[in-house]
């Protein structure tokens, strides 16, 4: 692609800004969505005073976080205590930079993908970054020198490391089918329809099991119900971020939701056919629609998240481990075997 370094930098900066804004907004309104949904599930109203339908609630929360006193308890291991939330948030935000949310677009004579960068091993890098995400939680739990936090951190690290395996294996099936690690190629593989009406999404092409495994593993990776033991209120006050307050806590909070969005986008890209969907209308609409479809699918996934949170109880820790190792892991392996067998036979 013939573009000079300067334009490259400029475009990258623009894209980064846009991505950050969009992502943070999404995070904020995911929280609003969660409270609202859970409220309705629990037969409440949820936030409704700040703005219409409490739409301004996230801003209020943000302000509140900012104005709260940032107190650092004694006997904490300062450097890590401070570094931990930053680390988690940074990693959470970084991983989104590799997620393509639409086709290439032509803006002012510059032809560029709608994502910060297009790497041909994007998926691997995303996995790597998410795997680094453990440190934030573990260090937070350890450095804040409190038994609740420590237990939470321990649980979190063990749980995330264990489920990371199932997660990765569940993706392998898709990778085998698409034969690439480039998210864009994977998505392009899923364009079109089978028998004229079923979209050729991986989930419809036999990866349903993998999708289920991915779902469960993703819940665990993001410490969401029913795998939210690291921050199990009823057992260890608030888990690894018991000792955190104000902005640091907010960072963890945002990191968690950002991770949710990342995971949702990956699920969309790998299983739900990415931005593919019915295209119609004029050219501008043609450019917008894919992004819309993408956003819609991500929204649906997040909706599922919240729904599950509102309805399912929490695991016991040994159950969690047993589930991960004795059920999900073999299931993912079996899926990989079957898929590779089918692919090999089709060749």
């Amino acid at each position: 692609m013939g573009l000079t370094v300067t334009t490259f930098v400029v475009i990258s900066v623009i894209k980064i800004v846009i991505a950050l804004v969009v992502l943070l907004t999404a995070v904020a309104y995911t929280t609003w969505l969660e409270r609202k949904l859970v409220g309705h599930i629990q037969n409440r109203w949820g936030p409704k005073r700040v703005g219409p339908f409490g739409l301004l609630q996230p801003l209020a929360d943000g302000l509140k976080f900012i104005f709260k006193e940032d107190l650092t308890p004694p006997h904490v291991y300062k450097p890590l205590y401070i570094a931990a939330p930053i680390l988690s948030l940074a990693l959470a935000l970084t991983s989104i930079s590799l997620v393509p949310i639409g086709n290439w677009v032509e803006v002012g004579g510059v032809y560029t993908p709608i994502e910060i960068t297009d790497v041909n091993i994007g998926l691997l890098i995303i996995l790597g970054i998410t795997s680094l995400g453990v440190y934030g939680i573990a260090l937070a739990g350890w450095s804040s020198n409190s038994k609740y936090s420590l237990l939470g951190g321990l649980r979190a690290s063990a749980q995330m490391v264990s489920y990371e395996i199932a997660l990765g294996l569940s993706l392998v099936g898709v990778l085998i089918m698409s034969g690439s690690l480039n998210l864009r190629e994977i998505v392009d593989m899923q364009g079109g329809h089978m028998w004229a009406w079923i979209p050729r999404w991986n989930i419809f092409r036999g990866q349903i099991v993998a999708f289920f495994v991915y779902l469960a593993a993703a819940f665990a990776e993001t410490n969401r119900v029913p795998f939210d033991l690291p921050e199990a209120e009823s057992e260890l006050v608030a888990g690894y971020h018991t000792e955190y307050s104000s902005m640091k806590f907010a960072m963890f909070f945002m990191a968690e939701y950002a991770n949710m969005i990342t995971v949702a986008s990956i699920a969309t890209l790998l299983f739900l056919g990415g931005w593919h969907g019915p295209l119609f209308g004029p050219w501008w609409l043609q450019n917008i629609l894919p992004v819309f479809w993408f956003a819609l699918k991500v929204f649906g996934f997040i909706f599922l998240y919240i729904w599950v949170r509102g309805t399912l109880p929490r695991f016991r820790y040994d159950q969690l481990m047993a589930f991960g190792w004795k059920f999900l892991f073999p299931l993912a392996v079996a899926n990989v075997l079957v898929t590779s067998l089918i692919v090999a036979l089709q060749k």
Partner: protein
Amino acid sequence: MLQLVLFFVFGTIAVAAAVNLLAQRHPINSALSLVVVMASVAMLFLLMGAEFLAAIQVIVYAGAIMVLFVFVIMLLNAGEEERTAGSRVAKRLGFPAVVLLAGLLAWTLLTRNQHPATVELSGRFVGSPVAIAQLIFRDFLLPFEVTSVLILVAIMGAVVLASPAGTTTGRGSPEQPPAKREE
């Protein structure tokens, strides 16, 4: 040019982090600095076109092995290491040996590398997953399988070693009632 800059940036980071690993007296700091070393080494891999390895380096080393280290440190709640008199052998024999080693290696590599190859961005020599996979699953299939067996053995050994006496029987251990498979 950019190459050189990146190399020196990440090289310096790596060395600095390694030194920090030695300097720090708390294991967790050492662990974190080691993570940094690994990350920068991964970057160097990328510079040399080993993108797959770079990703694996991050995932496996930084994401799994070092997490294990941190986990163990937290589990054993290892505090600052106490100053105890080391061994004379290590001081009087080891350090000169190390210096000699590094010196010799550096000298040899710098002065008499008969094939002065250079690393450029444009050089399209890429360890893509496909190429590596073909090597692993075709030419190096047997070693690959053997390593899988090795891993299995290692897992079992770790379980037996780490679990307190009498609980190595897995399912029926007292504090772990067998897990339900529902939901």
